[in-house]
């Protein structure tokens, strides 16, 4: 189950810093350790850099997750159509891909040209 917590508009480079910081704080307060805080903040930051770099703008939604005793953090970032190609390249750039930083990294197609990236990280 996901409980929505916060929404950010993604329009300029300052939004990268603001959203990354929110991700880091939320991760810390959920109980993630320092290294996982960095993994989560970096993954979200990198996706947002792709969205803003492409010029499409978008949004980021944060939520807490619960699955029985497990807790986690979810961030959904939306952007334009070219996001798929950009993120596909970024996520497959192993071993440094974004997907290595989170437990789940999924691309979803919305209505029209809108794309979304769903990232989830679970507390171990």
């Amino acid at each position, binding site marked *: 189950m996901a409980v929505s917590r916060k929404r950010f508009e993604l329009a300029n480079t300052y939004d990268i810093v603001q959203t990354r*910081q929110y991700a880091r704080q*939320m991760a810390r307060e959920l109980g993630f350790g*320092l290294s996982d805080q960095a993994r989560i903040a970096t993954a979200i930051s*990198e996706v947002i850099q792709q969205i803003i770099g492409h010029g499409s703008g978008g949004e980021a939604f944060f939520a807490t997750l619960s699955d029985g005793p497990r807790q986690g953090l979810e961030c959904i970032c939306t952007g334009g159509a070219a996001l798929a190609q950009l993120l596909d390249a*970024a996520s497959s750039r192993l*071993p440094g891909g974004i997907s290595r930083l989170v437990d789940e990294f999924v691309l979803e197609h919305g209505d029209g040209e809108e794309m979304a990236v769903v990232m989830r990280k679970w507390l171990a």
Partner: protein
Amino acid sequence: MSSDILIVEDSLTQALRLKMILEREGLTVSWVPNGRVAVELATEKPPRAVIIDVNLPELDGFKVCQALRTHPATAEAALILLTVRDHAQDTLTGLDAGATAYIPKDDYAEANLLQALRDLAILDPEPVEASWG
């Protein structure tokens, strides 16, 4: 005598600012501008935490981190990478090298650094209020 904190930073202005902030928190702080010298100093007189820039002369911050993490004298030290390099590959390289924390140099860098030092019990904790709810 060992310092609480060793700063490894080749920018004089950034190093001095960081040193001032940490000393204001009551910590003893040493500073070196060079990666190779940092490894020599830290393994000889192990600090509680090493704050490491990535772009450094002679030995970059990732290699400093790896050298300290694998040396018996500093294997348990807190290693905090503080850097402008904020891409996925950089973070993964830093954490794989043994970094305890990876903090980008942005508007929140100082606050995040102090918070990390509190979480590592190097600084006393502050009361925490949920800010994301």
